[in-house]
């Protein structure tokens, strides 16, 4: 407020106030004083409102800043470890699948070749055109082929069953990737909260309500608390509980 504004707003009242004071007129003195306070009140409320508003903004900024610090210091490095674990699991599953397929090639090939060889003699035999020596050769071939084919096909069948099981990695990695996606979403919300502080509250509260549906697969170096190391550990724990 400039000097001229100050004089215009309060000058006359200060003069009247001083005159009442000099006269010892208590009633007039208090009336002018009340009038001055009344004029000042809306300005005081305005300042108070502005102060409260600033405090709210500061509190919100602090809340967003501390969540952002948490994300940067803990959650993001955790997410990196989780993704590294996903990479390891997909790599292992792909190699295991390839190993099994490669192992299945030779027995399948062996069976095809042996069957082809026997088929020729078999067709001659069915056409009654086979010689006795060739017939005996065919019988010997059959003796060798049947158990070999059984063993080879059994190996291929076992490998196929294991290929099937190996695909289970997709469930585990999928759950981890979903967790990281949720983190990215939270990071997005927190960052946009920095620019729109008023909107940050509800979104952060929503994020805090999570984790009622399980934690997902245990990730070495990330998952905290006691974790069963394998099925034997689970069985021992359940047996301890009387199951």
């Amino acid at each position, binding site marked *: 407020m400039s000097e001229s504004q100050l004089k215009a707003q309060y000058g006359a009242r200060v003069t009247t106030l001083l005159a009442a004071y000099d006269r010892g007129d208590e009633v007039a003195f208090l009336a002018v004083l009340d009038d001055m306070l009344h004029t000042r009140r809306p300005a005081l409320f305005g300042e108070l409102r502005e102060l409260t508003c600033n405090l709210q903004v500061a509190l919100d900024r602090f809340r967003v800043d501390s969540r952002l610090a948490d994300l940067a210091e803990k959650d993001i490095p955790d997410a990196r470890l989780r993704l590294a674990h996903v990479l390891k699991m997909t790599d292992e599953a792909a190699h295991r699948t390839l190993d099994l397929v490669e192992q299945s090639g030779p027995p399948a090939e062996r069976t095809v070749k042996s069957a082809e060889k026997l088929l020729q003699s078999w067709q001659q035999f069915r056409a009654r055109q086979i010689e006795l020596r060739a017939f005996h050769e065919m019988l010997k071939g059959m003796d060798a082929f049947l158990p070999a084919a059984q063993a080879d096909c059994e190996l291929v069948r076992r490998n196929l*069953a294991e290929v*099937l*099981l190996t*695909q*289970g*990695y*997709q*469930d*585990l990695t*999928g*759950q981890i990737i979903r967790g990281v996606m949720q983190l990215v979403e939270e990071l997005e919300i927190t960052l946009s909260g920095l620019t729109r502080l008023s909107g940050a509250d509800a979104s952060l509260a929503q994020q805090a309500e999570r984790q*009622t*549906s*399980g*934690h*997902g*697969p*245990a990730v070495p170096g990330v*998952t905290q*608390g*006691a*974790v*069963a190391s*394998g*099925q034997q550990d*689970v069985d021992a*724990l*359940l047996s301890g*509980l009387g*199951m």
Partner: protein
Amino acid sequence: MSKDMKFLVVDDFSTMRRIIKNLLNDLGYQNVTEADDGKTALPILQQGGIDFLITDWNMPGMPGLDLLKAVRADSKLAKLPVLMLTAEAKREQIIEAAQAGVSGYVIKPFTAETLKEKLDKILAAPAK
């Protein structure tokens, strides 16, 4: 229990449902129904006819633990054998599932032998 018994496999990942279904078929169980979370599984169970429930834990919608609790709270389903087949390996969770009345608990990744062993054990146990 005969090989005609009907299984309900609940998992949000279709690959895992396929794996479990194939393993059950290998074991001679051909009658397998699927659901992708507790919410879709519960109406199937309530319709009746399911003899064995195999469920994952961590699923959007209704998690497996809530499904287990809902099954145990329903007088018609309370005695249904429930095998939890999950990646949740925290000791506190295994205890929580046991307290909620799970019949067996297998952690992922698992082997065909483990699944067979747990199924046989649950089916051999007298109904509670």
